[in-house]
């Protein structure tokens, strides 16, 4: 009995010494095998215990198992130490200035980003997002919006016509106002983002296709006014450019609104001081708007005696141009990855 006890003690001492002196993981593994492996010294002792009387087996077994646990623990500790020091050697002289490995992330189009921002702002103010077709009839694009045939006002919109059936490419997303009001009862608040087309020569500021966002709010008579429009649109610009933006309303003319106005905002580039972007005026024309013309309400079967509201239209490309300080609208449709991958 004492013999076994002594043997165990001795074994524990030498094992501990061996473990502490292990220089690398391989040594440590050998030491593990020597003592704790299938034919290891301690394993053999543990196995021999079965020949002892039951009482002694219990006490000696307890001691032997405790030693086994202790050894396993310090082997583990020694292992961590050795690993850490080996990493340390590897890590010395590590060059953090080597360029990071490029991760190939994709890019959304700047107009997608602008559209999302605009939608988010208006949705937070209770506006639903609605879409409509790009090919339109003359009725929806013009007549229903109080722009009669053979009226010079039609010249305000240079229009692409299709060879088929008197159809055209919509010149604004305003037709969706009509389509929506035909199917939905007021009060209503919508914005309509989408692609529109103009038959005009392209340059840095003009494109044959571009993006519009139309807004419409209709409520009971006396519930929605020019003052309300100013508040909504002011809030929009403030959130869109993330700073206080001065706006001003100028008289304008649109057949589908009365009164009509043009909204200028303080040039975001020079903050109103005057620069090449705003032609030294400090102001940039951004948006057309007005109070919905009674004829438009009538065209969708609403009685102007009970309903009124405002509508506005803003060029998304222009918003993007101001937000990202882009000089040429044509970049949006040129597919140049050097441009697109900046967003």
């Amino acid at each position: 009995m004492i013999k076994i006890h002594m043997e165990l003690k001795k074994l524990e001492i030498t094992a501990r010494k061996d473990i502490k002196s292990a220089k690398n993981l391989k040594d440590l593994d050998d030491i593990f095998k020597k003592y704790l492996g299938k034919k290891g010294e301690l394993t053999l002792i543990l196995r021999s215990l079965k020949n002892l009387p039951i009482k002694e087996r219990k006490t000696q077994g307890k001691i032997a198992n405790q030693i086994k646990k202790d050894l396993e623990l310090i082997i583990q500790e020694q292992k961590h130490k050795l690993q850490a020091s080996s990493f340390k050697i590897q890590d010395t002289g590590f060059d953090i200035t080597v360029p990071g490995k490029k991760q190939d992330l994709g890019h959304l189009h700047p107009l997608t980003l602008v559209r999302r921002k605009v939608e988010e702002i208006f949705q937070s103010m209770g506006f639903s997002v609605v879409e409509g077709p790009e090919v339109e009839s003359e009725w929806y694009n013009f007549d229903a919006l109080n722009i009669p045939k053979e009226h010079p006002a039609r010249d305000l919109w240079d229009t692409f016509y299709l060879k088929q059936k008197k159809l055209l490419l919509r010149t604004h997303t305003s037709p969706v106002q009509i389509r929506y009001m035909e199917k939905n009862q007021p009060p209503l608040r919508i914005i309509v983002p989408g692609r529109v087309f103009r038959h005009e020569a392209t340059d840095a500021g003009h494109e044959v296709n571009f993006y519009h966002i139309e807004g419409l709010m209709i409520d009971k008579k006396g519930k929605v006014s020019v003052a309300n429009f100013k508040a909504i649109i002011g809030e929009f610009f403030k959130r869109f450019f993330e700073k206080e933006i001065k706006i001003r309303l100028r008289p304008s003319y649109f057949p589908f609104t009365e009164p009509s106005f043009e909204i200028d905002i303080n040039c975001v580039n020079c903050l109103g001081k005057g620069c090449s972007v705003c032609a030294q005026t400090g102001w940039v024309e951004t948006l057309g708007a007005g109070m919905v013309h009674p004829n438009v309400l009538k065209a969708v079967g609403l009685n102007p005696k009970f309903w009124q509201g405002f509508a506005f239209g803003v060029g998304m490309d222009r918003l993007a141009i101001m937000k990202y300080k882009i000089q040429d609208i044509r970049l949006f449709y040129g597919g140049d990855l050097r441009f697109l991958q900046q967003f």
Partner: protein
Amino acid sequence: MIFSYNWLQSYFKKKLPKPEKLAEILTMRSFEIEEVKKTGKDWRLDIDILPNRAPDCFSHIGIAREISAITGLNYQDSSLILGENISRPNGKTKDFVSIEIKDKIACSRYTARVITDVKVGESPKYIKERLKVCGLQLINNVVDAANYVMLETGQPMHAFDLDKISGKKIIVRKAKKGEKIITLDNNKYDLAQDILIIADEKSPLAIAGIKGGKNAEIDNKTKTIVLEAANFEAKTIRKARQKLKLQTDASLRFEHCLDINLTEQAINRAACLIQEIAGGKITQGLVDFYVKKVLPKTIKLDVAYVEQLLGVKISKKEVIKILKSLGLNPAKSGIKLKILNIEIPTFRLDLSIQEDLIEEIGRIYGYERIKPVFPLAVLIPPKRNIDCFWQKKVKNILKETGFTEVYNYSFVNEKDISVYQSNKHKTAVIELENPLSAEQRYLRPCLISNLLKNIQKNQKLFNEIKIFELGKVFRSGIKTGVEEKRMLTGILTGDDMFYQTKGIIDSLLNKLGISNVLYNNCKELIHCSQKCAEIKINGKGIGILGEISAEILAQLDIEKKVCVFAIDFEKLQKHCSEEIMYQPISLYPSAVRDLAVLVPREIKVVDVLNKINIAGKKLVRDVALFDIYEGEEIQEGKKNFAFHIIYQAENRTLTSKEIDIIQDKIIKTLEKDPEWEVRK
């Protein structure tokens, strides 16, 4: 439109604000001033007159009226006293010339005056200067005077040499078939039958409301002139100038409509001016054809509505003051009432409903004085737009996969059509009536052609290109005329990108909650026939993927191989689902066994997979292909597939014995076909 600052000043006794300042005031209250430019001692103001205000503001008097309303300065209309030649009884106008109007709709008023004994020569300096500033050509004192009065009053005028008018009769009629005219600028025009003309008994003298002709031109020898001031229908003039492609200062004014009562005022003014600068005697009386006299109308204005619409309280007193400043007169009896009756002078053709008046009140009051106020509205949460939701989601997934989004033009050219479209499709392409260029003659029937152009442009700068577009395409449809639908199309460059593209589609569909996906062989012209597949969800085709054929790449100078996928977004969207159901993670370990099988070349992976899955049943959790090999070391006509088979049970740890049994079963099933051999 160009205006002269000095000319405008001439209507005011007091000094006008300086040109720059005046421009600013007008911009904020009336019309945008595009440019202020000093020319000599005068300033050119380029004023962007709004189209509805053309009838009263395509004139210096109109702008003077605006300035007066905004600034409160009084203006004076420079109407002169008419010096008719009453002393001579034989000088009655109607004895000199007669008029006949054949089309009373196209010409609702025709006013004429005759001046005898004029001396044609140069205009005085002030007229020459003002016309020059406004960009008009100087002709002679008679023609210049007519032009001058047009710029002053807005009424286009014309002067004929009476001695050149055959039969001394002016006829206003539609042109006859084959009639021609040579205009003052020596251009020859063929007149279509719906074009309104001024003619004598023999031939056309002028294109009504557009341009005068050579036949009765004023020249140095002209002694007696007939002045014309008429009101022609806007539609008629507009159609004619579009047809003739001839826009003039006169046509511009007529097609925007004019005050029918303006002719008399303008013709008298012009006659006096001619008499003053070219001498001559005005004959007695006006020859005036006037179908139906137009009187000022009245608009009822609800004072409370002004506040309701503008959102600012403006006192009735101020409302009346503003309206009066514009020459709009509230009836005296109505002043005490809540509803005002406002009399509208006939020159304000743009005012017809009370909202029009509220606009006048608003802009003169000043929009900047309206304080922003948030609306008080019922709280209705915005509706969710599911279309937009999926568009957003799809774009995000592709972005995460490393794609760059592009927006291309909605147009394509002839070549694009012929390259990509089979004959069947060609007829379905939508052509524009008025394309801007041959490059943009058709609406795009697919997104691929423009995306390929993007590749061509970028290939020198980027090694690998992954781009996509989500946009509308157009084809002619039987029911609706034009069928437009949203397509999702992506393009990748690189060798052997088919499987990578397929993997992208798999991930995309998986993220969209779509599981039952199948790929079928298909032949599309655009693709190499072998490397092309139709994508099916629940057995329904939603799109294709494949490699672009070498011929097309060569035609477009694309040097790299290109793989494309094109998905009908509307069809795709029907299968999308936001639902995600959590699958419990098995508590028991999985085991992986490898299996390699040699099969004839024509056998497809899916055939092998099906057999493994059927034989292995529920305990086979997944089978992953990790290698396909054919070539050396393998007998000809065969290929080798290697799979990892993952075994797992939901309720226990599988013993290796159990796994052996299933694996054996799978092997036996595969080897039922004598051509198949599992490699051990």
